């Protein structure tokens, strides 16, 4: 097996807030390989974005900090590196595309300048002309029309989709080994989303970068990802290939996610939301963080007392952190059947 491009091991991130310590990421371990697209899914506050702020060394200081664990990248543990050492990695070997292209570009500098800056920061010997040529090439590569003209324009002269293309160009500028995309399409129109996804796909194929796709858009996951990591309450609750996660989820939370999706195949009158709210990250529920919202838990003592560990469900790469993962398959069948009936029957009660 090839070496992992990025390997998280027991990564733990905490934040100090006025209300107490927030356990944003709690003992997260997984890896991603070159050429692979790994989707990290979960609700807001599940810790999926914070994980990668920690990886990039961009946690807000001094409130946020990595308290435990390691981040292995190209044979080096990034935890504990100085700011100076991180600066050489950021935007160079490891790059990030952010959620909102409208606010992610600096309004007072031209797009070309910001692109060239990304290049010259990591290639101090690059001349201004060379940087411009390369920047124009990058803009055309991500499908910005008239890149020569666009080079000298300011972000406010770009449309949202164009800005996200420019952001992708900026991230790919130094051909990173790891590309992190944090909700890259959420802020865009649906039609633009498809185009941006295409750009991402192409960029990913050409550079063979390991790609992390942070999203809550399961459609995007199905479109792009090879493997999926599902996070809940700062922990990984399930990992597996895209087929495993979509067709045979082994964690009730993943099951809930799948059931809350609109489907074309079933004529539903109503979607099934997951009842309740995400857990407080300050005072987490004891035991399994999901148990207050879990239909399967239903008063079982062990769910309330013991934190489930991530265990293989098939002897292979499919892992779940549920005490009763074997029951999820049956639950899936029941709910699917239920959906079929309910599709004709009308009103649907909450899953819980």
């Amino acid at each position, binding site marked *: 097996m090839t070496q992992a491009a990025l390997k998280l091991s027991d990564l733990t991130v905490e*934040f100090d*807030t*006025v*209300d107490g310590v*927030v356990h*944003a990421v709690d003992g997260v371990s997984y890896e991603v390989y070159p050429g692979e697209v790994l989707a990290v899914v979960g*609700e*807001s*506050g*599940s*810790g*999926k*974005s*914070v994980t990668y*702020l920690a990886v990039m060394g961009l*946690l*807000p*200081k001094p*409130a*946020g900090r990595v308290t435990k664990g390691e981040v292995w990248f190209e044979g080096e543990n990034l935890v504990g590196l100085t700011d100076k050492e991180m600066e050489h990695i950021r935007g160079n070997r490891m790059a990030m595309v*952010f*959620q909102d292209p409208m606010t992610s570009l600096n309004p007072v500098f031209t797009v070309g300048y910001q692109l060239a800056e990304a290049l010259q920061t990591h290639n101090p010997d690059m001349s201004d002309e060379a940087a411009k040529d390369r920047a124009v090439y990058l803009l055309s590569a991500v499908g910005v029309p008239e890149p020569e003209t666009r080079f000298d324009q300011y972000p406010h002269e770009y449309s949202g989709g164009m800005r996200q293309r420019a952001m992708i160009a900026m991230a790919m500028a130094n051909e990173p080994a790891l590309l992190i995309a*944090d*909700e890259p399409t*959420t*802020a865009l129109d649906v039609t633009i989303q498809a185009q941006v996804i295409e750009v991402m796909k192409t960029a990913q194929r050409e550079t063979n970068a390991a790609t992390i796709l942070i999203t*809550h*858009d*399961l459609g995007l996951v199905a479109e792009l990802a090879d493997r999926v990591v599902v996070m809940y309450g700062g922990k990984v609750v399930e990992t597996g290939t895209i087929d495993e996660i979509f067709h045979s989820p082994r964690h009730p939370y993943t099951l809930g*996610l799948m059931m*809350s*999706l609109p489907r074309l195949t079933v004529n539903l009158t109503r979607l099934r*939301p*997951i*009842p*309740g*709210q*995400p*857990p*407080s*990250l*300050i005072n987490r529920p004891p035991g399994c963080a999901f148990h207050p919202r879990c239909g399967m838990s239903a008063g079982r003592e062990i769910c309330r007392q013991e934190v489930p560990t991530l265990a293989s469900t098939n002897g292979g790469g499919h892992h779940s952190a549920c005490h009763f993962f074997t029951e999820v398959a049956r639950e899936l069948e029941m709910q699917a059947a239920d959906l079929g009936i309910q599709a004709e029957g009308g009103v649907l009660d*909450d899953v819980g």
Partner: protein
Amino acid sequence: MSDRHDPGRPIHTKGADDLAETEGATEAWTELAGGKTPPAAVERPATDLEARLEAELLREGLEVEHLTQWQLIRRKFLQHKLAVVSLIVLVIIILAGVFAGTIAPYGFEEIDLQNRSQAPTLDGFHIMGTDKIGRDYFSRVLFGTRTSLIVASIVAGVSTLIGTVVGGLAGYMGGRTDNWLMRLTDLFLTLPGLAILLILSAFLGQGSPIRVAFILAFLFWTATARIVRGVFLSLREKEFVEAAKAAGASDGRIIFRHILPNAMGPIIVSMTLTVATAILVEAALSFLGFGIQPPNPALGKLIADGQDSMTTQWWLVTMPGLLIVTISLCINFIGDGLRDALDPTQVIS
């Protein structure tokens, strides 16, 4: 009309985010780093979705912890230590001002010929000393404080009233009314305020504290007007106002029942800061000799009178000055505390 949409009342539960929610956790943390704002994931105004889920929870008999708006504000204000201390000090000063007649050991003009130009001493209880002709300085400062407080209260009251009416009209009516009213306030804002005040005061307001107060209020209402207008403009577009309109509520009812209560926070803060400014400006006017005139006591005038003998009798300038600074500092800290408590989202001061 459901008050669930009330933007000023955070729900003290965590919002369930559905998968379609666009807000990333990143934002929450970035904000969190600002520290002043509680993490958005823990405390934020209820969205429709949250409200719906909350209702579902209630139906299921689950407890949702609520703090009322005022409980929340009080709790936050009390966390601001400086503001609390300032409030206590200010209350003491106000009480001293109100009961100046009882507390002051001497009258304002009462002369103690034995003790002229006396430095602060416990002898004869001249704790702030006496002036050239033997008047007890503590008593003079106390009466001066009373005048300052009276003037500042009138200014704050009148200018808040004018500012709220003008700002509210501009914000609620919008369009041309808004345009003209805001031009008017912009105009006032760029004028060399003190110069205008001096001219007005010199020709119209000589002497009496009440007249000086009204002249100040005439120039001070603009700051409040701008703030109130901003709040009205944004609240006007809110769902609960639209809903009230759709339900056929009259303009008056919408303004007084739905918008004004939500605008109270910024109005109170701006009123507080007006008090501080009014005290400073009144003192400046009186110092220059165009504000409150003798025989009315005024702190600014005391400083002006003491200015010549400053090097030999330090207390004459220092004491009234310190009092102005203390009052103004207290009010500014209280304003800061109120701003934090009333508006969790606002970081800009």
